[in-house]
């Protein structure tokens, strides 16, 4: 663990800060560290996120049958082994808009990074019915591995029919006398994968109430019954039970991102480019369950983390290149946005070089490959190749695009005064 209190406050910002220590965040940290980025991983509670409370994991390639806690422990050891700084903190505020991103924690630490991967995951959705809140931890549970023991030889209901609901129901049968699944859909329809459904149907301890929802959870101090409503007939019935396990999907942990400028969808998930994990903010990437995606699994979270870290590395390299080649030189910079696919842009590169030689080499030439650095082109409003931008002290002072017939003349015109300005 990094001891932040002993850290020099003037210390350089991290190259990469990863928010969230689930499978996505830990994989991002592994790839970040291996790419020699100075990486910080922030996790507020337990490394592994939701995976750490999933008992049975049977689809992580290479592991056969393992458990969530065990697999996440291996992830964590791998991260530690690579020398990633890890802290246990809760992020409460972020400023992600600038070149240096600032992360503030509940304990009041202020952390700075050049690139950020947001991977805070999601938490279980609640039913939102009467009795659920007061009976939480009193028979209402969202974590089978945490609470299954209490229900040894008792009867419980499981709400939901997705992968998590079906798999946790099967797990609960190891303890409970009976497990009744409350399913929204008509008889025979569940959302879980076919293999899990078949295991559930073959399990004699699992019963089903189809096409129904829970309207209320009742009990004096502990859960005693649930009120069910049949969606077809509208009929209500009360069913005695000792426990209610809820697995009806998740809600993204993005409250701390409200107002940060990061684009979220109406449900609060982060909208990121599925190719690169890039968000709408420069240098900020998203990974794992928190982003809008089609399949939420440990393996896809890890995949997101790997892509996000590589994209972050590329981003940092581009920024470094931009600073070094375009923004920081004392002399005026002619930035040629080119592309190997454009013949004309190759001509413009050659002309720029000749014109600069003719002008006594008073410019610095910077070549920016539009294909590789689409983001930079976007930042400077470059819409076509070739385009030439003239930078002085980091600012765009002139641009030429489209017609390059008078290019040499354009350069000569700017030579005298700009060189003087530059020096």
């Amino acid at each position, binding site marked *: 663990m990094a001891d932040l209190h002993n850290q020099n406050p003037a210390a350089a910002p991290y190259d990469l800060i990863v928010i969230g220590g689930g499978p996505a965040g830990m994989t991002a940290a592994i790839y970040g560290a291996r790419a020699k980025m100075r990486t910080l991983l922030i996790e507020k*509670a*337990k490394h*592994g996120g939701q995976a*750490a*409370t999933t008992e049975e994991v049977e689809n992580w390639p290479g592991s056969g049958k393992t458990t969530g*806690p065990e697999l996440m422990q291996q992830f964590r050891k791998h991260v530690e082994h690579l020398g990633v700084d890890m802290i246990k903190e809760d992020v409460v505020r972020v400023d992600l808009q600038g070149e240096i991103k600032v992360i503030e924690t*509940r304990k009041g630490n202020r952390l700075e990074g050049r690139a950020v991967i947001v991977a805070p995951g999601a*938490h279980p959705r609640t039913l939102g019915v009467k009795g659920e809140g007061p009976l*939480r*931890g*009193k*028979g*209402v*549970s*969202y*974590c089978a*591995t*945490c*609470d*299954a*023991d*209490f229900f*040894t030889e008792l009867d419980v209901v499981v709400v939901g029919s997705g992968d998590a609901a079906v798999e946790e129901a099967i797990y609960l049968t190891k303890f409970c006398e009976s497990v009744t699944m409350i399913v929204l859909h008509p008889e025979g329809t569940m959302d879980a994968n076919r293999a899990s459904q078949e295991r559930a149907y073959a399990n004699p301890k699992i019963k089903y109430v189809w096409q129904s929802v829970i309207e209320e959870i009742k009990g004096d*101090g*502990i*859960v005693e019954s649930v009120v069910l409503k049949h969606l077809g007939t509208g009929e209500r019935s009360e069913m005695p039970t000792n*426990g209610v396990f809820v697995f009806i999907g998740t809600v993204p942990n993005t409250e701390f991102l409200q107002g940060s400028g990061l684009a979220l969808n109406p449900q609060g998930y982060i909208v990121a480019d599925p190719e690169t994990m890039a968000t709408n903010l420069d240098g900020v990437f998203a990974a794992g369950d928190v982003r809008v995606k089609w399949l939420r699994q440990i393996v896809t979270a890890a995949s997101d983390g790997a892509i996000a870290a590589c994209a972050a590395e590329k981003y940092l390299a581009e920024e470094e290149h931009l600073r070094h080649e375009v923004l920081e030189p004392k002399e005026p910079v002619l930035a040629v946005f080119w592309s190997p696919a454009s013949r004309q842009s190759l001509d413009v590169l050659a002309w720029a070089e000749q014109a600069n030689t003719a002008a006594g080499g008073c410019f610095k030439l910077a070549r920016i490959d539009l294909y590789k650095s689409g983001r930079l082109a976007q930042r400077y409003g470059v819409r076509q190749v070739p385009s030439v931008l003239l930078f002085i002290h980091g600012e765009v002072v002139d641009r030429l695009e489209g017609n390059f017939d008078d290019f040499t003349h354009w350069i000569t015109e700017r030579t005298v005064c700009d060189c003087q300005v530059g020096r």
Partner: protein
Amino acid sequence: MLEVNKETFEAEVLKAAGAVAVDWWSPQCEPCKELLPEVEAMAAKYGAAIKFCKVNVIENRRLALGNKVLGLPTFLFFKDGQKVAELAGPEACTPEAIEAELKKLA
């Protein structure tokens, strides 16, 4: 922290004078294990004013049910043998929430 069980709970918690905090946990409960270092730090900090106990619910299931503990992690807070506060479930049992209860109790 003092490990208590079904035999010692009454003497150590219910008959104890002053403030007692009881951490209900199990080896299967990952959120409980993650909380432990912070709880131990709090035990060191408030140790003089508050007695800290923990109960492994796997070995003391009936004791848990008798105290209406049906989910983990759960923290119960006692004053002179009377239950005065409770935090149940991983969302409720944050280090901040636990410390807030301890401050009220101390």
